[in-house]
């Protein structure tokens, strides 16, 4: 298999900079800098990538810190550790893999504009914020994230009424709005001057 690889970043090799072009790329060393390839990018178990990766197909067995975007598929194997967003028509995450980030699959291609994505029916596009861990026996999303996802889905469909699960705690992600209206700079001084 190794002989077929057109480009290989060896175990003790460190690349700092951009890698682009066409051809398969196997990373067993360290890469810092963006990677964009027409072909398959494989991050080996010893590979360490701190970069955004975009390719036709991405297979991850090592560590990646950065966003992954594939035109065909992303395959995340059990030994992978990923911190970053995933985007591809098809994404596979093996049990035991660590993924932290936004995951987006579906018919919406990697280069599809945002407006077009909204028109894709919800059944074809599955969208969720996923955090899995090797220790967890099964991916059990927390209540808050379920509510948030439900709220997001409701917003997407254009329904005004919140779902049953969305209580005050679930519906409000940020801090409550300030009770006192925020005054523009200089307003207070102006008021004092008047009195």
């Amino acid at each position: 298999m190794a002989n077929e690889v057109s480009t290989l970043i060896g175990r003790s090799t460190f690349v700092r900079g951009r890698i682009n072009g066409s051809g398969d790329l196997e990373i067993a060393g360290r890469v810092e800098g963006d990677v964009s390839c027409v072909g398959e990018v494989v991050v080996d178990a010893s590979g360490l990538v701190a970069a955004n990766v975009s390719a036709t197909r991405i297979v991850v067995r090592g560590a990646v810190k950065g966003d992954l975007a594939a035109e065909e598929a992303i395959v995340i194997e059990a030994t992978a550790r990923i911190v970053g967003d995933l985007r591809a028509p098809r994404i596979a995450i093996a049990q035991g893999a660590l993924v932290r980030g936004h995951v987006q699959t579906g018919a919406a291609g990697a280069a599809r504009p945002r407006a077009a994505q909204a028109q894709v029916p919800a059944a074809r596009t599955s969208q969720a914020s996923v955090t899995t861990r090797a220790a967890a026996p099964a991916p059990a999303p927390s209540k808050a994230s379920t509510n948030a996802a439900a709220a997001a889905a409701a917003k997407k469909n254009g329904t005004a009424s919140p779902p049953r699960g969305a209580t005050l705690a679930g519906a409000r992600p940020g801090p409550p709005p300030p009770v006192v209206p925020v005054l523009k700079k200089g307003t207070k001084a102006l008021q004092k001057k008047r009195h």
Partner: protein
Amino acid sequence: MASTVIGAGITIEGEVTSDEDVVVQGTLRGKLVAKDAVTVEAGATVEADVAAGPVAVAGSVTGNISSNDRVDLQNGAKVIGNVKASRITISDGAQFKGNVDMDV
């Protein structure tokens, strides 16, 4: 079997540091530092300073080459830059423009 290969269709812009062999078949711009052998194959383009062990060039190199062993400019090679090594061969058919420094 080389440990690091930069394939024919690939371009790397930046710094490559390696403790093992590096074979360049594609394009590399920036800097190349290797502890072991560096091979620039025919058709490859290196626009970088190269510091390595034994260096064999059959492609194009623009930049200074410094080796702690030997530098071989093979037939078809095109090198613009200074070469510093203790042993140098320039084959018939190799193009070379630059200074040679064989530290004696």
